């Protein structure tokens, strides 16, 4: 066991998977000698050579399109989208080509498309996105977003070994802020499995990514007020671990859905529907959501902090729920 940062865990996963399987290779912008905009791929080009760590033109459609083609040939491409906001540029390739390929003709597309998501770093409208809702309505894609270094490594390894296209969102706020213990031996975190980050009896805060820490801080504040919040970290957004969500809600009878993407049409709406369809009789209060304001991500620090969900917003919503 070694304590490593979230970003180091991602790098280790790439390194180990490339060493394990010659078919794994990387494509992306500035990922070679430069090591990537956030240095996720630092040292990989030196180790594996520029034929397996391919610096691409600024062409997200070509990166993902070429990954699809290479995966048809049995390769296992991992694409880096420099900032996940730019995934919009290859939306067509992902939703129309990659997601439908297996269904249409049985030709699987085992690719991983990974990149830094999320706000809280003053990135403004085009360097702060949380894009999961864009893809949630696309059958054929899988999506994950780790919150710990352990999960960052285990989920990435699982994504690379998976036979379907996986979008892997890594929260840039966590890159160097989060450190935890990562085993020395090979392991994976299976796709589609949530984790209970904190046990509680009074309400379930269902969240993922950087918001896990907001939820845990809120749970600590709530505990001082005699409220025991359970925190569920979804880890996988497609497929969703419905069982874990429903099990927690059946226990606490109250659900607060927390995500960093904007509110309307967000993944919280889907979770609310799942809970009301399958756990309606367990609920003692309406399902509530805390998410970013329905606006593009603003740049100025006072604007961005007002925009993002915060500990105080989560505490306030939780109290409304338990007092309902």
């Amino acid at each position, binding site marked *: 066991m070694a304590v490593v940062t979230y970003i180091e865990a991602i790098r280790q996963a790439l390194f180990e998977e490339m060493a394990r399987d010659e078919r794994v290779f990387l494509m992306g912008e500035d990922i070679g000698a430069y090591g990537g905009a956030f240095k996720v791929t630092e040292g990989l080009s030196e180790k594996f050579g520029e034929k397996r760590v391919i610096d691409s033109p600024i062409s997200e459609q070509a990166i993902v399109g070429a990954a699809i083609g290479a995966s048809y040939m049995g390769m296992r491409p991992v694409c880096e989208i420099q900032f996940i906001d730019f995934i919009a540029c290859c939306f067509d390739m992902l939703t129309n080509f990659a997601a439908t390929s297996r269904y249409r*003709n049985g*030709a699987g597309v085992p690719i991983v498309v990974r990149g830094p998501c999320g706000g809280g770093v003053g990135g403004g409208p085009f360097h702060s996105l949380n894009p999961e809702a864009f893809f949630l309505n696309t059958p054929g894609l899988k999506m994950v977003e780790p919150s710990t270094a352990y999960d960052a490594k285990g989920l990435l390894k699982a994504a690379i070994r998976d036979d379907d296209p996986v979008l892997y969102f890594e929260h840039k706020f966590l890159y160097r802020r989060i450190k935890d213990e990562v085993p020395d031996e090979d392991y994976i975190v299976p796709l589609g499995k949530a984790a209970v980050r904190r046990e509680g009896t009074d309400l379930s805060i269902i969240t993922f990514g950087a918001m896990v820490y907001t939820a845990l801080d809120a749970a600590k504040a709530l505990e001082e007020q005699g409220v025991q919040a359970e925190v569920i970290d979804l880890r996988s957004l497609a497929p969703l671990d419905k069982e874990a969500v429903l099990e927690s809600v059946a226990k606490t009878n109250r659900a607060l859905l927390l995500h960093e993407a904007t509110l309307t049409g967000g993944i919280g709406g889907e979770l609310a529907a799942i809970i009301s369809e399958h756990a309606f009789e367990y609920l003692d209060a309406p399902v509530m959501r805390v998410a970013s304001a329905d606006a593009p991500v603003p740049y100025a620090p006072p604007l961005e902090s007002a925009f993002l969900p915060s500990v105080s917003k989560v505490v306030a919503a939780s109290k409304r729920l338990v007092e309902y």
Partner: protein
Amino acid sequence: MYWFARLAREIEERLVILFRQSKVIGGLYRSLGQEGESVGTAYALEKSDAVLPLIRNMGALMTMGVRPREIFLQYMAKGESNSRGRDLNIHIVHMPAWTRDLSSPAGRDTDAPASRPALQVGRDTDAKEPVVVGPISMLGDSIPVAAGIAMGARMRGRTLVSMAWIGDGATSTGAFHEGLNFAAVQKAPLVVIAEDNKFAYSTPIARQMAITRIDERAAAYGIPHEMVDGNDMLAVYDVARRMVDRARAGEGASLIGVDTMRMEGHAQHDDARYVPKELVEQWEKKDPIARFTKVLVDRGAANVEQIAEIDRMARSYAAEEADAAERSPMPDPATITRGVYAGDDYARPTLEFVRSPFADAD
């Protein structure tokens, strides 16, 4: 070559009948007048290469040996079609077993020169099966995918050439430019066939691009490009052969501009009244199959009776294959959610291939 072009035309004639009987589901997109360039280009490939045709490249599919029944099953949305009724017309895919053979390692030397034998991966029996990746309706997307096929096969130590066809309209998409540029930078063994067939649906080429030669699309990417008379099958074959050979030799991507004409509307519903009559008349005289017939007869390669016999063979073969496909059942609605993810695969990327009756004469 004549057989493949004639067969493509006869298959489409048969499809027109089935379309009028409402047995073809959705639209029918013909390649009338473009059979020659589809065949001439694909004919330059090995049977183990990769093809990414568009809807008007029936001739390329026939040249690669795709069984005509596969086309009819697909167009009639049958349960036994390549896509199991999930997708239409020539949106078909074939992956030879070697592509899915996960036990074999990737090729270590990614710079395999042409003289070096391909690394033996997968079964020998599929060595002559092509990779076939049909288009999706977002035209242009095939080009980055074709580049990736070329790069991926090279990484696995295969000497495979990837050939993709694209219409003049689709050369205006971003995906086309991104894909061609990436292939050029990577020196990927890709040959792109850019077809100037004068109209993209109803839009004339002058409103599609300000250049007059479609092959100049490639000029910005530093790759060889040439224009060819697309209705002269031998000329098409000659330039395709050169571009395929240089791709196989590791010299990288290229683009062939094809001057041709779409002789019918975008699809069967479209009467193409926007096409000037004189233009159609002018191109009718240049029909690629008629021209090739003349070449064969003039050079003494075949006489008129032999050609007529080949035509009869093609017509009855297309009819037999269509009849067999027609008898096939429609898909079962209970299967709609199968095969969205791995582990529950339903459609298979497997096509049936047939040998040309003239294979030995080729």
